[in-house]
């Protein structure tokens, strides 16, 4: 599927005096688009990033910045997450430090013996895939998290989990990439040649030319695919995050209840919530995670906030007296099998997809960017990309 790209020839295209010509156009200035730009540029390609909104204006700006392996069972997504974890850690150009990167680890807690057994089973399977997880007995939980509620059955500590501030991560990756960034510029058409191959994109401020277009449009990835004559069933899954007043560090890890994993994998359209609680370097505690399929409706759901607050205060009773100062909604771009689409479009030569990461885009961005860069330059991808093949879905009627 990975097509060899004639980048030697592309690199001879004069760039310095024509800002509308590049080796690759990345559509989407979120974290995934930024990572694609970053790794493509490091591979020697000239990159233009275009977005109809601002930097980090979509899912990225509404995310918590999770870099998680703890919530993923063995399989292709976990492989992607493990690679990303390493890439985040090793990233250069000062990006992690400027993005509030914190390798703080995750703590998954179980409220009952049954849930604890399920966690053990899950962690054992993860261990075979390279995930480190330490069982924490009930009476040791508060050594890890002094404010945790009493009465929990135990938990697992995942030292590989980390966090970044997602908007900063996207902006810093973009800046480090050196890509030309055109925000506030909507792609209205994908330009194609006589053979249907991609030639660039059309925006209200003019045409941009490149032999490759990367679809990193997140929730709008389906729309962009359609513009190009392709098809990708990306749909939005709404989530709310509650943000507290500034606090000292009261939560050290990313702490969540074991049922989160089941919610992430669920196909239900109905509202699901599971408490995910974490502190931030800036002070506020962030509380997720809700999931529901309601299109792009941004209206505040008091029910979602109630459940988030209930879950968080059940885990950390001291939060009951702490005030939420804001809440925000975001839309996760998801695909039916909950795996992202990374790779060449099966029908449109020159079009690559890098979207549909659902709620894991911040974490999965570097590995996605690296894969895209390798595909663009004809190099070997860092892992098996077949499970992410954008052609795996039956074409829409």
């Amino acid at each position, binding site marked *: 599927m990975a097509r060899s790209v004639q980048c030697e020839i592309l690199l001879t295209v004069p760039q310095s005096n024509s800002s509308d010509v590049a080796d690759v156009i990345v559509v989407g*200035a979120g974290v995934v688009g930024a990572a694609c730009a970053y790794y493509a540029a490091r591979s020697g390609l000239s990159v233009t990033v275009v977005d109809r909104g*601002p*930097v*980090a*204006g979509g899912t990225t*700006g509404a995310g918590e910045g999770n870099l998680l392996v703890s919530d993923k069972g063995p399989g292709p997504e976990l492989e992607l997450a493990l690679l990303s974890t390493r890439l985040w850690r090793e990233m250069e150009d000062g990006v992690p430090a400027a993005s509030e990167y914190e390798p703080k680890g995750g703590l998954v807690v179980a409220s009952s013996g049954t849930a604890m057994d399920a966690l053990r089973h899950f962690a054992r399977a993860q261990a075979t895939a390279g995930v480190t997880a330490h069982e924490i007995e009930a009476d040791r939980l508060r050594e890890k998290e002094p404010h945790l509620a009493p009465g929990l059955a135990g938990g697992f500590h995942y030292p590989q989990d980390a966090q970044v501030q997602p*908007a*900063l991560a996207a*902006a*810093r990756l*973009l*800046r480090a990439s050196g890509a030309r*960034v055109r*925000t*506030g510029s909507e792609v209205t058409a994908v330009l194609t040649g006589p053979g249907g191959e991609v030639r660039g994109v059309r925006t209200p401020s003019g045409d941009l030319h490149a032999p490759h277009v990367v679809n990193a449009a997140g929730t709008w990835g389906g729309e962009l695919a359609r513009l190009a004559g392709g098809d990708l069933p990306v749909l939005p899954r709404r989530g709310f995050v*509650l943000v*507290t*007043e*500034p606090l000292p560090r009261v939560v050290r890890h990313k702490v969540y209840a074991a049922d989160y994993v089941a919610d992430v994998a669920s196909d239900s359209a109905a509202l699901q919530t599971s408490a995910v609680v974490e502190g931030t370097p*800036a002070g*506020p505690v962030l*509380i997720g995670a809700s999931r529901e399929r309601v299109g792009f409706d*941004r*209206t*505040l759901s*008091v*029910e979602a*906030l*109630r459940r*988030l*607050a*209930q879950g*968080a*205060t059940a885990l950390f009773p001291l*939060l*009951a*007296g*702490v*005030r*939420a*100062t*804001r*809440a*925000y*909604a975001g839309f996760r771009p998801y695909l039916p099998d909950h795996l992202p689409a990374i790779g060449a479009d099966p029908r449109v030569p020159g079009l690559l997809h890098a979207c549909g990461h659902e709620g894991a885009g911040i974490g999965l961005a570097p590995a996605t960017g690296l894969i895209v860069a390798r595909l663009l330059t004809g190099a070997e991808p860092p892992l098996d990309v077949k499970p992410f093949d954008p052609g795996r879905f039956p074409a829409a009627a």
Partner: protein
Amino acid sequence: MARSASEPYDLAVLGAGPAGIAGAVAASEAGLSVALLDASDQTGGQYFRHPAPTLRARRPHALHHDWPAFARLRGRLEASTADHLRAHHVWTVTRESADAWTVHALTGADGDGEHPVRIRARAVLLATGASERHLPFPGWTLPGVVAAGGAQAMLKSGLVLPGRRIVVAGSGPLLLAVASSLAAAGAHVPAVVEASGYLGYARHPRALATNPHKLLEAAAHGSVLLRHRVRPLTRSAVTEAHGTDRVEAVTVTRLDRHWRPVPGTGRRIACDALAVGHGLVPQTELATGLGCATRRTPDGTTALALDGLQRTSVPGLWAAGETGGVGGWLLARVEGELAGLAVAAQLRGRPAPGGRVAELRRRRDRMRAFADAMAAAHAPGPGWTGWLTDDTEVCRCEEVTAGHVREAVSGLGARDARTVKLLTRAGMGWCQGRMCGAAVACLAAAGTAEGTVPPSAERRPLAVPVPLGVLAAQPEAAQPEAAQPEAVQPEAAEPEATRPEGGAGPHGRADPA
């Protein structure tokens, strides 16, 4: 109004300033059951803030123009069947169905023992007023530098001043009112510093001529200021406040017509307080959270877009007063009455009294024209950013400097307030960008074609902070009446604050949380 406690109100009015009171009175007199909610214990809103009863002010009129007219309006409210729900901080409004709304509020003392109340209503009138617009300058976080409207509010309600020698600065018609009341209350006001000229009014002679009340009001402030020998300095701004633990002096600098400080014109004025503000901004967050359309006013604020009967773009939601554009209390009163009549007509399915509606609409249109003229005359010029140093704090809550914001704009590609917020935290703190929003939007737009302060389009899904314990104790959506055994505080079932004066028995669909 016979209305059982389990029934929704016909109308919930949010805000007990002139617009809200007029709306509640009109709707109630037209036969609707009305709940009038306000964060304060008292009616009057910000404009008619007045001392608490225990301060026993015999001359409240000395603090206000038009006090008798307000007292009459308040008298009609007291005589009406409307339930005045005091000390209700509304944090959100949700739509349950086409004609069913829930107003979610907190009652109780701020930050200690708040409890939730839910008011259900068939229609909602948003009369949430305005807040002050602020433009930062070096030293503006020093103690003793206070908002102009804030100084006035503290004077009107608490009978206190922030200092003895108070410079009043900024822009807009409020400044003269603030300076004259501070001076009347015993402060020495060495200068009123206005960034615009008053000549701007002369470009709108028609709007002035048809609003003689405004001229009289300005003349009254003017005569007070003359009596106290207050110097008005136009086309000037306070470009720095000096001091270490509190303000000791300010630098006043001349401005060109774009509000750019003119180099070499700064001079120091000693003072122990500075009251500063740059006009008012409609408070629209509850409305925009529900999807109401907005419009841009001549001075660059965002106001709700309303039709001839005060309807927002969302059916079932009306608005009146400053939410639709800042225009003063007389306009607010007219719009409130118009909205109250329109809601009653809609809910009762019969036309509103045509003659009265036509008269109100005429008055409203005349006063709106005047408000637009005033707004245009005081619209901040783009040059004000010239007085910001890189270490000037722009966001007071998160202590984000102008340099930091500029770096996000020039280095990281932020072009709008929301992106600046995401990249710098400016506007992410306790006040949710209410103080810095206008300035951040302006800095973010630097280099774009915008000639004035761009509208602030921040979303604030929580209009006030809400304790997580309170959120957690909300009733479940699927079964709204079901008790939450561990969460319900029995004393919250009938909050004292929901009982109307006169003890007419339990009122208010204040659902136990």
